[in-house]
């Protein structure tokens, strides 16, 4: 019953936050001379098309991995702000490796994914190492490493990893990954159930995202590592006293978080781009922080958050065509996030008080002790 109450509170407060954000955005739309009802109507109409929904899922998958990478750190009070850098350097190197090696089908894909995870883990683990051995706060080091990753990525791409372009092709990119290193789309599955996503290819990585979400839940809630992680987050002093080595936990958590971050770019790489180019999507790491907050670090909550952000992202595409600034989506996302964070803080206080009252209540057993 208690768990249910938490769930109800979480769902209701998130729902209210979204409604509030829609209202705020409506006001902004109205002030800027657009009809909010018309804009929302068009977003909705466009957004519920099958191809839009498939595209929303495609956009959600990277955000989901990104959010999990961030949430893992949050669980022990570590702020991995470096998912951005981690996934970008990971996807670049994985793309280069994937194009350079020749392996049969599934192994090729696996090699690319493992490479990305290893690079992400190393990049993030370095920040963990700096924290433990040199006392550098992970917020500082991961932010700095984002710049390093961007700069180093550009350097590697421009000098060593780019393909020789034919004359006239000015886009700097890695060589294309051959067919064996690509993930098939899930459109076949959609067709079986009678849906036609049109020109959108539903990413195969969506399956891995679901598996990873489940794995995240098991890791956090059912393994000793997960317990030690949450204990360290809840009370560093108590965790240490219990024999949990804080340094080991920091490094391990950053390594695993980085490995998950390495997966962020895989959906786009294996399902669409098949190479790293300078127009590969950015900001997925930062948006993941927002999704983790929105989903309260919970695998289902984050999935909902990622899908919501993915859907807004897709649905607002239509606004451009109608001459309405689609930047409204950033305002929408920002306001949702702010109101959700505030709502959660308020709700948490209430839940805690309710828990205390429930216990005090259940414990005054004039019944049990004496009359």
């Amino acid at each position, binding site marked *: 019953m208690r768990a249910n109450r938490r769930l109800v509170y979480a769902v209701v407060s998130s729902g209210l936050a979204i409604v509030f954000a829609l209202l705020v955005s409506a006001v902004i739309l109205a002030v800027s001379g657009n009809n909010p009802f018309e804009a929302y109507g068009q977003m909705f109409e466009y957004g519920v098309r099958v191809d839009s929904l498939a595209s929303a899922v495609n956009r959600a998958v990277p955000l989901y991995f990104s959010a999990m990478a961030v949430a893992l750190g949050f669980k022990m009070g570590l702020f991995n702000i470096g998912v951005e850098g981690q996934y970008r350097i990971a996807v670049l190197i994985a793309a280069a490796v994937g194009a350079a090696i020749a392996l049969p089908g599934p192994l090729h894909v696996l090699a690319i994914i493992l490479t990305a995870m290893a690079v992400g883990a190393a990049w993030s683990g370095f920040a963990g190492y700096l924290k433990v051995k040199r006392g550098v706060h992970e917020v500082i080091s991961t932010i700095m490493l984002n710049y390093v990753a961007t700069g180093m990525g550009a350097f590697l791409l421009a000098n060593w990893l780019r393909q020789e372009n034919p004359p006239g092709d000015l886009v700097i990119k890695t060589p294309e990954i051959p067919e064996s290193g690509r993930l098939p789309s899930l459109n076949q599955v959609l067709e079986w159930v009678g849906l036609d996503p049109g020109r959108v290819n539903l990413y195969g990585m969506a399956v891995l995202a679901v598996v990873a979400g489940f794995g995240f839940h098991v890791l956090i809630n059912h393994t000793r590592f*997960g317990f*030690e992680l949450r204990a360290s987050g809840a009370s560093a002093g*108590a965790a*240490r*006293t219990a024999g949990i080595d804080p340094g080991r936990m920091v490094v391990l958590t950053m390594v695993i978080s980085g490995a998950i971050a390495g997966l962020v770019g895989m959906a786009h790489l294996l399902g669409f781009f098949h190479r790293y180019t300078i127009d590969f999507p950015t900001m997925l790491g930062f948006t993941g922080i927002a999704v983790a907050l929105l989903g309260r670090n919970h695998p289902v909550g984050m999935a909902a958050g990622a899908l919501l952000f993915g859907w807004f992202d897709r649905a607002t595409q239509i606004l451009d065509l109608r001459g309405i600034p689609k930047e409204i989506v950033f305002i929408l996302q920002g306001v949702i996030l702010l109101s959700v964070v505030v709502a959660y803080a308020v709700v948490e206080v209430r839940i*805690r008080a309710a828990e205390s009252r429930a216990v*005090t*209540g259940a*414990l005054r057993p004039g019944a049990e002790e004496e009359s």
Partner: protein
Amino acid sequence: MSLAIELVGITKRYPGVIANDRINLAVREGEIHAVVGENGAGKSTLMKILYGMIPPDEGEIRIRGEATGMSSARDAIEAGIGMVHQHFMLAEQMTVLENVILGAEPRQGLKIDFEQARRRIVEISGEGALDADQMVEELSVGEKQRVEIAKVLFRGAQILILDEPTAVLVPQEVEELFVSLRELRERGVTIIFISHKLDEVLEIADSITVIRAGRTVATADPRRISTRDLAELMVGAELPTAETRLSTVTDQVLLQAEGVGTLSEDEDRWVIEDISLRIHRGEVLGIAGVEGNGQRELVDILMGLRPADSGRVLLGGEDITGMSTLRRREAGIGLIPADRHGRGLLLVSPLWENAMLGYQSQPPFTRGWLVDGVGARRRTEDVVDQFDVRTPGVEVKIHALSGGNQQKLLVGKEMLATPQVLLASHPTRGIDVGAQAAVWESIRAARAEGLGVLLISADLDELIGLSDTLMVILRGRLVATLDPGQVTPAELGSYMTGASQ
């Protein structure tokens, strides 16, 4: 004398049960009035009502004869009521002065009038009682408490509620607290003193109200009632008798420290120095000392939480000086930490996860890398049953339990893990007489089975009553070994302060 506070028929119901059942309380102006009762008797609920934190369902609160309807702590503060909580709410990184005025800064235009604040603090707490510019983190527990009291008085409180103020203090500090409480009484401050330490209550209080199971069961005059009668009123039953026991000490050494020491952070002095001790199978080794004389560091070294800069630690003859805390726990060293909130509990986690903490590498809590939810919960239920942890269940978040019940869980989980050696710091701190006796009993029973215990306590009766050997720690060194059968609390006190050597 007129009444400062009168509570009439205060009733507070929670779904299905009654936390306060028609409680009456009359506190005269300028007296020290003790409210005593077991953990969970309803004292805290009552004080929260009085402090405006929760509204009563029925009954009336009269302050100086006037009925009031307080609905928040702010109302209470305005009515001149101030509360000093058991757990200090101080900003460690700020000075005493800043802490006292925080939220009630005297202003001069836009600036804070520090000079006025400084004068008022001296006025309130007396000349030289507090150094206004010292950082709070440098203060002893007793001094921090004085800051808390000063904070409340600074806000103009004339009625002071002290929630178990002596629970965290050593005997000398208790005396100092009592001196300042009497001074406050001289100045006309009314004090409500919540406690379950009956000796102290009899010493300081002018009148006593006993609460049991949510009801006022008696008011008593401290000059005419004995500790024993008071305790029986409080518990509602006959008390466990004083211990008579046989020595179970063997000559088999379990845990041994050889000349261990540890340097301060800047490595310029020894925090503890050259400490050697042996805990035998079946022995309780008591360490007496004023808090802050190296007890914590000693436990930390034995537990592997702090490196030994000199000497070595042996468990069953094996050198474990470099062994990790986890390995030591697995090897059979249990720990009841002194700082329950800082080092013992995960407050927002359920009971069963708190029971698992420290034993996360062992059955029944985990199997390999997986948490055994069933085994862990079952073990926790055993702790709850055997140690009378009052909780609706093991899924409850532990912050919702009272301090005494949290402590019972901490003790119980260690005892049920059947360690070889138990390092117990203040094992009965904050728990009531009934539960205290149960904890002592379980320690004695385990000792008869061969458990070796290092007992650190501020409760001298507990130390003398439980220990087979007593050692005194002073300024980081063991300065005396005493026979608990011979020594009196007064003598022990003088060893602890270095008065007799």
